[in-house]
């Protein structure tokens, strides 16, 4: 199976991959991948490590460059386009227009150590989106409240625990008002007892917003609760897709069965 289309009702998909190829040296990570995600979808990518899940998120954030194919955001060409027959890179200036719609939360949080919690959150809204500082601060305070970090507003980031840093990172991504939020193993670096806090924050965001979410996670229970669609990857291809209930209880494909048996025990 090489293609997968959105289950949602018509309209332009939020994300569309068309024949996307990604190689690292001789290693083909994505081989002509096709799939799309409808607006407001919550899609979990599962699969063994090296299957290309994280690469998909990194391509969407332009942290990696594709070697072929097209990535469309709301139907707009994002990283590359065809000019006649020629496959060409879209210049940074145009990419930035589209990139404003995409946000990402990282496994290792990646907060800026030279800024306080509040400064981390308002930096891009003020300097990239051009918000007034007072407005950005008001919004940041609201987000800090939402992730339960109001008290740490003026702390330096290295005074925070991992779970606290990740909650700030989530607030920072949301402050940019993304239409699409990419979550790359956001709980993998956290202590088990803190994972629940962070997942709680994400669950609330999923319930209260219509942000399109694409998540790579090993928290199968969380994937089941939050996402409405699960894609199983193996060797850079989608081997199976289903709603979470079906995927986790009645996986059809042999690879999915093996994988789920290994992670769920």
């Amino acid at each position, binding site marked *: 199976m090489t293609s997968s289309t959105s289950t949602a009702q018509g309209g332009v998909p939020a994300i569309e991959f068309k024949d996307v190829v990604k190689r690292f040296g001789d290693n083909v990570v994505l081989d002509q991948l096709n799939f799309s995600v409808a607006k407001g979808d919550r899609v979990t990518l599962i699969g063994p490590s090296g299957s290309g899940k994280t690469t998909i998120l990194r391509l969407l*954030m*332009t*942290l990696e460059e594709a070697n072929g194919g097209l990535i469309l955001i709301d139907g707009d060409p994002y990283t590359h386009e065809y000019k006649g027959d020629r496959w060409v890179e879209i210049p*940074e200036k145009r990419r*930035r227009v589209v*990139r*404003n719609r*995409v*946000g*990402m939360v*990282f496994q*290792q949080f*990646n*907060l*800026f*150590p*030279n800024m306080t919690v509040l400064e981390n959150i308002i*930096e*891009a809204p003020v*300097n*990239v989106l051009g918000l007034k500082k007072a407005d950005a601060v008001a919004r940041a305070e609201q987000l800090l409240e939402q992730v339960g970090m109001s008290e740490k507003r003026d702390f*330096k*980031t*290295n*005074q925070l625990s991992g779970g606290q840093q990740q909650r700030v990172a989530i607030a*920072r*991504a949301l402050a*940019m008002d993304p239409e699409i939020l990419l979550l790359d193993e956001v709980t993998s670096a956290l202590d088990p007892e803190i994972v629940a806090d962070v997942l709680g924050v994400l669950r609330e965001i999923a319930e209260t917003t219509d942000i399109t979410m694409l998540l790579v996670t090993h928290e199968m229970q969380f994937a089941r609760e939050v996402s409405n669609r699960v894609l199983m990857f193996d060797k850079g291809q989608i081997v199976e897709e289903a709603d979470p209930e079906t995927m986790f209880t009645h996986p059809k494909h042999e690879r999915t069965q093996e994988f789920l048996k290994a992670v769920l025990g």
Partner: protein
Amino acid sequence: MSDFLQTLTSRLPSLGDAILVTLELTLGGAVLAMALALLLGFGARTRSLWVRGPSRVFIEFFRGTSLVVQIFWIFYVLPVFGFKMEALAVGIVALGLNFGAYGAEVVRGSVASVPASQWEATIALNMSWFHRVRRVIFPQAWALMIPMLTNLLIQLLKGSALAYYITLHDVNFWTTQLRRATSETVYSFTAGLLVYFVIAYLLTWGMNALEERAKRRLGRGTRPSLRDVVGLRPAVGTAAITGRGTAA
């Protein structure tokens, strides 16, 4: 000895002028060097060969040729092609070019030491390249590069003594004049050593304070004791940091 002291005292006003010239050379050279170091250090990191190539050539050329020859070349040869500058400007330009090349390697190495994940976060927030560097990458690289820049600044100060050979009345010149006037070789040159040492010490002191401030901004300041700030040794923890950066 008392004759020497008398002459020395009478020459203190001219020492003030000499120190001023040395400081002008050092600080002027340092400002030019830092500007070049930033330009070339980031230039040497870009993907574009058209920027990276010339940056590398410039760095290698000015690192690989003698400072003395560079000064003489700018002072004596450049006028042949119609570019004549004042001696002070020649000194500043030569020191700036030479130490800018060394500084570029410091900048490049320090910027490379900032984790790639920090760049990725700036991309995820859709910052422009300049914004990324100015607000996120440079402040972190800055804390790493200061100890190495301090070294270069002290070397630049000492290198400025060459200005005497292009007619400038700097500390080196003053020392030589003192020796001529007193015939006291030992005392005169020792006095010269001490003057350079005191200037170097003050510069180090200032740079250590800068480093302390930069680290505190990253939330890992070592509460500075007076000894850390005044001491010759850099503040605690820099050995590990300098070890990671690329040496010039």
